């Protein structure tokens, strides 16, 4: 007998533009003690399945076909009141964001005891004991005292542990975890996944993990269902899906996952979801505007050289300097980047890597230290006009493609803005010609120029963003987590594009990421940052093979194991 049985599920969202079928004929089963992974990219319908099982489908979504059986008992037709009793009692839930899934105004104890008492009717005393016991099980140190704390007194990882304890409160038979570790840093992700797997085995709970992350799948699941546009295209054991996938979508998805263990020349066959852009014409860079008159001199020594950079933020403002509370987001950071090199900066959230990027491109003014670019200290430039000369040589690609483009401007005007501002073209016709060529060059096609940003997908928007950055003909490009908001197959396309452009135009890059495998694919040298300090700088291969700093080793150990992944059709670059 299956613990949970989802049968021919079909979920529709009627809208004014026609009915969207979010989930189409999906059948899944979960056994006690088994972890089932549901993997897919955004919009595949994987979260909708989870919501349907717990009866929290958001209107106007409705289940039009199929049924959900919990221990052979049909639960999708129950009344809302009966469904509410099942939620939490028999089916537990873990959501993505530990910040918002706990009530900030109640202590952990109040929330746990209330839930336990509600479902198990143990009485207050017993419930309290059970709450402490649960916290101990999920690995919270000193649970007798910590239970009196409010959610904000816990760190992100600890809070997710509390959420897991909350889901386990009533000894549910099934747990549904929707992207449980997406909001957490890698080091914490590994611990949480380990904890979830152990609890699942110990208590013989069936678990569905919904995720977009192949690393999570590889780490924790027994079986995997791969979803593509509302349908399950392939289902099987984790080893089979990762090592020997049958469906072309699964193959393309797996080939797009950045490898921590090998460095690829390019990501192969990644154009299953979004057609990878084809350039309609080849540009001869020696004569074309994009390659022509780069009026900067070659530099002796490094192109960019950071010397003892410090950035201080005021956390508690005060009129008197002595009363202010400050902290150093970046503390004494120095490194060089040579011309034509891709330099990676890696670290966990809050390590100050983005702050370094913003100081390099003069968005922030450093509290101390120097930013030497092509021999000039940018921090000493006073006049805006003088600075424009350097701005032209240095452009930035941002993380979030949905906020980095002004939604009120046409793509033509967005990309033309830097060309017009720096007067890089002589006439309007020339500007338009350049923008169209740029759009073509990043794989979008010139007809994109008359449209607005909202008409494009995330990956296409990131291409627009790249075209804008190239529009000043820079020689130095800062990429601040350029793919962390994108699906993995789109990420592979964008990384391919950046690699191609870097080679063609001989760009120097500062590439910032929290994702070590991505760093390995992209960078020549890497700097590792921790709480504002640079702990190690070495060549990429050395960093991965023989790291010197203890923190680097720790980060490398925490990377999800992807060695089960299929190697078929991959071209490995020999370093």
């Amino acid at each position, binding site marked *: 007998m299956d613990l949970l049985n989802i049968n021919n599920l079909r979920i529709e969202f009627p809208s004014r533009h026609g009915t969207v079928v979010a989930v189409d004929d999906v059948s899944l089963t979960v056994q006690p003690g088994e972890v089932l992974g549901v993997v897919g990219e955004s919009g595949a319908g994987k979260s909708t399945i989870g919501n349907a099982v717990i009866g929290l489908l958001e209107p106007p979504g409705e289940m039009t076909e199929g049924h959900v059986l919990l221990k052979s008992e049909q639960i999708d037709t129950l009344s809302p009141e009966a469904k509410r009793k099942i939620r939490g009692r028999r089916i537990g839930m873990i959501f993505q964001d530990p910040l918002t899934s706990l009530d900030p105004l109640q202590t952990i104890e109040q929330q746990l005891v209330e839930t336990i008492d509600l479902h198990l009717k143990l009485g207050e005393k017993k419930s309290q004991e059970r709450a402490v016991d649960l916290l101990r099980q999920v690995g919270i140190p000193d649970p007798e005292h910590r239970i009196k704390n409010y959610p904000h007194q816990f760190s992100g990882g600890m809070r997710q542990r509390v959420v897991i304890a909350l889901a386990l409160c009533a000894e549910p038979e099934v747990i549904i975890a929707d992207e449980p570790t997406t909001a957490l840093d890698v080091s914490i992700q590994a611990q949480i996944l380990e904890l979830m797997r152990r609890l699942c085995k110990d208590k013989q709970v069936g678990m569905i993990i919904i995720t977009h992350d192949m690393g999570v799948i590889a780490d924790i699941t027994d079986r995997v269902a791969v979803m593509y546009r509302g349908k399950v295209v392939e289902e099987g054991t984790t080893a089979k899906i990762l090592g020997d996938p049958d469906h072309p979508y699964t193959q393309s998805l797996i080939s797009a996952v950045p490898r921590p263990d090998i460095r690829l020349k390019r990501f192969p066959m990644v154009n299953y979801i979004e057609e990878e852009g084809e350039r309609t014409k080849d540009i001869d860079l020696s004569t074309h505007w994009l390659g022509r008159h780069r009026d900067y001199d070659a530099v002796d020594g490094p192109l960019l050289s950071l010397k003892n950079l410090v950035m201080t933020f005021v956390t508690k403002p005060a009129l008197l300097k002595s009363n202010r509370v400050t902290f150093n987001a970046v503390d004494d950071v120095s490194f060089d980047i040579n011309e034509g090199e891709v330099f990676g900066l890696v670290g966990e959230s809050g390590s100050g890597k983005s702050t370094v990027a913003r100081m390099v491109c003069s968005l922030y003014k450093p509290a101390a230290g120097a930013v030497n670019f092509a021999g000039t200290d940018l921090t000493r430039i006073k006049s*805006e006009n003088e600075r424009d000369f350097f701005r032209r040589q240095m452009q*930035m690609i941002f993380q979030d493609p949905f906020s*980095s483009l002004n939604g*009120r401007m046409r793509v033509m005007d967005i990309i033309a803005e830097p060309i017009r501002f720096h007067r890089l073209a002589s006439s309007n016709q020339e500007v338009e010609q350049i923008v169209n060529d740029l759009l073509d060059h990043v794989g979008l096609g010139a007809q994109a120029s008359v449209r607005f940003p909202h008409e494009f997908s995330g990956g296409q928007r990131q291409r627009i963003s790249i075209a804008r950055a190239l529009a000043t003909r820079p020689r130095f490009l800062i990429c601040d987590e350029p793919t962390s908001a994108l699906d993995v197959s789109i990420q592979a396309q964008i990384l391919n594009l950046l690699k191609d452009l870097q080679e063609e135009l001989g760009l120097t890059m500062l590439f910032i990421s929290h994702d070590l495998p991505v760093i390995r694919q992209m960078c020549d040298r890497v700097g590792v940052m921790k709480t504002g300090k640079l702990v190690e700088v070495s060549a990429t291969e050395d960093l991965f093979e023989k790291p010197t700093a203890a923190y680097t080793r720790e980060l490398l150990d925490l990377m999800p194991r992807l060695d089960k992944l299929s190697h078929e059709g991959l071209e490995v670059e020999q370093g």
Partner: protein
Amino acid sequence: MEQVQPTTNSRVQRFFDSDIWYSFARNPVAIISAIVTIGMILAAAFAPLIAPHDPFDLAAIDIMDSSMPPVWDAYGDPRFILGTDDQGRGILSTILYGARISLIVGFSSVVFSMIVGITLGLISGYAGGRTDAFIMRIADIQLSFPAILIALLIDGVARGIVPKELHTDISIYVLIFAIGISGWVQYARTVRGSTLVEKNKEYVQAARVIGIRPFTILRRHILPNVMGPVMVIATIHLAIAIITEATLSFLGVGVPPTTPSLGTLIRIGNEYLFSGDWWITIFPGATLVILVLAVNLLGDWMRDALNPKLR
């Protein structure tokens, strides 16, 4: 779940395809209030063409026609459908001309408020620090007075410093200035809030990395992105401005009786209410209520339609 978005480049087509139009076409209250508002604006704009008489033409007014009841009353006169006031002006004609003045004052003061409020809000939000604190403290101080009091104060000061013979000529401009100044705080606060959000978005940072100067960033990038809530406030503010004008005119500090607005008409009628000449005050009053109600309902709908949380 992909969205099929037809690529259309005509602005008109895009408007009829938008969610705003979709929401509008399915909301009877919004449609009716839009029709009423537009109808009243047109009637006021073309008052010289459709009004039976010109109430400002002293030669056409006959004191013998004064205080006539509406046409359905036994003593009514078919020339004056809604009766006449104490000076023999047809009520229907004075309402049409009066609504014209009310709407001109309302629209102008809203535009004036918007210009002042949006400018200060943008500067405040983008500059931050002391500039922000300075502008916002002024706003706080002004908010601690009722708007009508500020309008009265400005009106009084203007009357004090301007020579008496010019009062009639400039009174309408003083009124616009007074109502406009009393309403800028709302815009400034809203725009400041949105600017604080927008200026941290990456598209603004991208513009800064390119080197675009702050003024251009505000005008080209931030302003278009903060206008949504401003349009909602403006619609609701229009209703408030019309009411404020009527209140000031009712109190006798608004437009002069020779060019009466709706508020002036209500005040004139108020003096005759107890002598039984109810029509002089009721009809302008009803017009004012309908106009303000329609504009307010339109503003309410717009607020809901533009607020993604309520959709």
